[in-house]
């Protein structure tokens, strides 16, 4: 047997295995159960208004609020990390290590339930507000690390040139280093946005009022009420809606990354 026929046979058998798996799946799968549990038409037609105008709206709102809050926090953290005073650096490092090491869910429960009990304090905006603060705290820690990497990726000569022209340290940071660092971190920050969007589903645990419900909470509710009660149709609906938002974003990240690679 020649080398080329052997390669061809190998390729052919891999296709055969793939085909066998697909056929087995199609034969074994209980299509009726899948349809009636995940794709009940009434679940889509009856719930879409709430799912989109309450669920998607709140999910996006929560994502943006915690992203912007987290970003502002991250800028402060990274400036602290670069501060000439050591205790500031320790504080920032400690913060970042702590919140990157904890599960987001634990932080959310802490802020929404633990802290109010301990300090007899009602978080602004109720438990949602507390949950959002928790997401900000976590996102800020991750974004601070991303920003730091971006700042370090700006060549040292840039800051040296600015300083040699007599620009002071704050101006050098604000108009020379930061703008270039931000360009570098746009792709990883967009990734951060996608992760945060998925993490808003964790707010499910804090107890949300009807008009505050995000996509996951709403989908869970509609599994036991409404036209598709008793099925997981709305869960599938929510999954598709999440993908409709996250897939374009991840494609955008891939595009931005390839563009950056080309421009170097």
């Amino acid at each position, binding site marked *: 047997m020649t080398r080329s026929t052997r390669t061809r046979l190998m390729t052919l058998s891999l296709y055969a295995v793939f085909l066998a798996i697909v056929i087995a799946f199609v034969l074994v799968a209980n299509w009726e159960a899948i349809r009636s549990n995940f794709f009940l038409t009434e679940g889509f037609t009856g719930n879409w208004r709430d799912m989109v105008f309450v669920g998607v709206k709140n999910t996006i709102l929560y994502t943006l609020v915690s992203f912007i809050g987290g970003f502002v926090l991250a800028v402060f953290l990274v400036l602290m990390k670069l501060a000439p005073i050591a205790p500031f650096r320790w504080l920032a490092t400690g913060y970042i290590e702590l919140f990157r090491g904890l599960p987001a869910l634990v932080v959310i429960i802490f802020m929404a339930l633990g802290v109010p009990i301990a300090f007899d304090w009602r978080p602004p905006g109720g438990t949602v507000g507390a949950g959002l603060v928790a997401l900000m705290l976590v996102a800020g820690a991750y974004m601070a690390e991303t920003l730091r990497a971006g700042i370090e990726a700006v060549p040292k*000569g840039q800051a040296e040139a600015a300083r040699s022209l007599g620009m002071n340290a704050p101006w050098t940071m604000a108009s020379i280093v930061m703008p270039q660092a931000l360009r570098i971190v746009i792709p990883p920050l967009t990734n951060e946005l996608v992760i945060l969007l998925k993490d808003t589903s964790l707010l499910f645990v804090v107890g949300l009022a009807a008009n505050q419900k995000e996509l996951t909470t709403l989908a869970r509710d509609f599994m036991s009420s409404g036209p598709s009660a008793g099925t997981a149709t709305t869960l599938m609906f929510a999954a598709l809606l999440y993908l409709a938002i996250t897939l374009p974003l991840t494609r955008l990240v891939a595009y931005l990354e390839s563009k950056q690679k080309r421009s170097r």
Partner: protein
Amino acid sequence: MTELNPHQELDRRAPAIEVRDLHKSFGDNEVLTGIDFHVNSGQVVCVIGPSGSGKSTLLRCVNRLEEPTSGQIFVEGIDITDPDTELDRVRSRIGMVFQQFNLFGHMTVLRNLTIAQQRAKKRGRTEAVAIARENLAKVGLEDKEGAYPAHLSGGQQQRVAIARALSMNPDMMLFDEPTSALDPELVGDVLDVMRKLAHEGMTMMVVTHEMGFAREVGDKLVFMDGGVIVEEGDPTEVLTNPQHRRTQAFLSKVL
């Protein structure tokens, strides 16, 4: 104009740059071991030497991009090693040109030339733009003001960098191997600009490997090796009749 530190009057009669017993270490590595050195106003001083001899470190100490370990550096009579010195003000009087150009990549050529004028010199935009255009014309790149650095050749980038430094109206210019990162055919344009500056009477300190430039334009040549100044004097004299063995060895390799 705000007051200078009263103890540190700007003195135009003092040497432009005066270095006294300068030491600089990076950790255990002593790069400069007692440098005494001066550049008079209007002089062009070229510094040569093998790599690792400390010549770039010396240059970078003059505007305190490197922190001296000990010793004093006076720029126009002002001790820049004094912690009370307003370093940003002194720096804006010293233009610096880097081997790697270090143009701001996110800004157009024109913005590269105006940003520090506006931020550090507090000039208005109209004035800054006028000065920037004047200096771009001087380096022969008036048609490139809208370009981004990445779209320019190395030689053009370096000339923009020179124009950027000139836009601060410095009293002196420091050049850190300005042509070492350039393709050979682009070196000439940059040296032409530097020659023109020298003829206008600009005070210049140039770390370089361009012996021809040093001989033709330089008023003084300094040879450094192992963190000390081994020999200094008239460029033609030093290049053709070096007194010290280390200078002879170095020149026999590069000439």
